[in-house]
């Protein structure tokens, strides 16, 4: 395989892992927001009621499926791409992607403080992987 092909393959794997994580986390966050405070649901209907409420949300189930696919995509990526590239790249891309998706799809108020936190987390993850 040529170098360019290997690089393209590596970044495609990393992109798929990050995309699955972003989709899954946003769907789960949207499902939880729609359900409301789980502590209140647990206080009213107990732990079985809270678990029933979560498991009966189609958005949550879709999100959990994406997270499961993310897990297997990550296993595949870690077996074909160098860990020192794959681990920090997927983590950083996921943080940035989550912030963008949260602003666009969840209408969260991602203010300057939160953007700065995303940049610091990405830089921190890159440094931790050195």
């Amino acid at each position: 395989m040529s170098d360019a092909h290997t690089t393209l393959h590596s970044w495609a794997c990393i992109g798929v892992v990050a995309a699955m994580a972003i989709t899954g986390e946003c769907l789960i966050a949207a499902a939880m927001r729609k359900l409301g405070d789980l502590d209140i649901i647990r206080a009213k209907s107990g732990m079985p009621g809270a678990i029933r409420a979560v498991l009966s949300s189609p958005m949550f189930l879709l999100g959990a499926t994406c997270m499961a696919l993310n897990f297997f995509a990550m296993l595949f990526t870690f077996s074909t791409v160098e860990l020192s590239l794959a681990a920090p790249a997927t983590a950083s891309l996921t943080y940035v992607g989550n912030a963008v998706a949260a602003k666009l799809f969840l209408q969260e108020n991602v203010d300057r403080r939160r953007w700065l936190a995303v940049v610091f987390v990405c830089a921190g993850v890159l440094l931790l992987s050195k």
Partner: protein
Amino acid sequence: MKHKLTLQQYLILIAVMLTASVGDSLLSKGMEQVGAVDLHHLDKLWHALFNPYVDAGILLLIGFFASYMTALSWADLTFVMPATAFGYVVVALLARFWRHEQLSPYRWAGIVLIVCAVGFVANGPPRTELAEENSAHRELNIMDSGAGR
């Protein structure tokens, strides 16, 4: 935006920070004892379930998922995200003080950056109130005031 978190909500965020990282570390220690698993030795995965470190790791990861979802039910995704990133710091500190590994200056710098990120976000409001939620709250307030009359 709501500004204040209760003590219970802070404890849930601390659980998010600790359970994933400690759970991963326990799984890693358990799998070290079990040995490498490959396609020809998949039965080792079954044996892994009888390793106390693996069992404790799985329990903690279930706890992580439960506390993460609870946090997302009252806080924004962009508020909870840095708390999950703090797990990297906990893993690095566990590596330094539990497993006595040396941390390079780069890693210490990474730890400082992630701690700063958590500090930035923790100082802000946890939840964006959407317009539809505000109108639902207003309707509830009107109904409550009507019921009180």
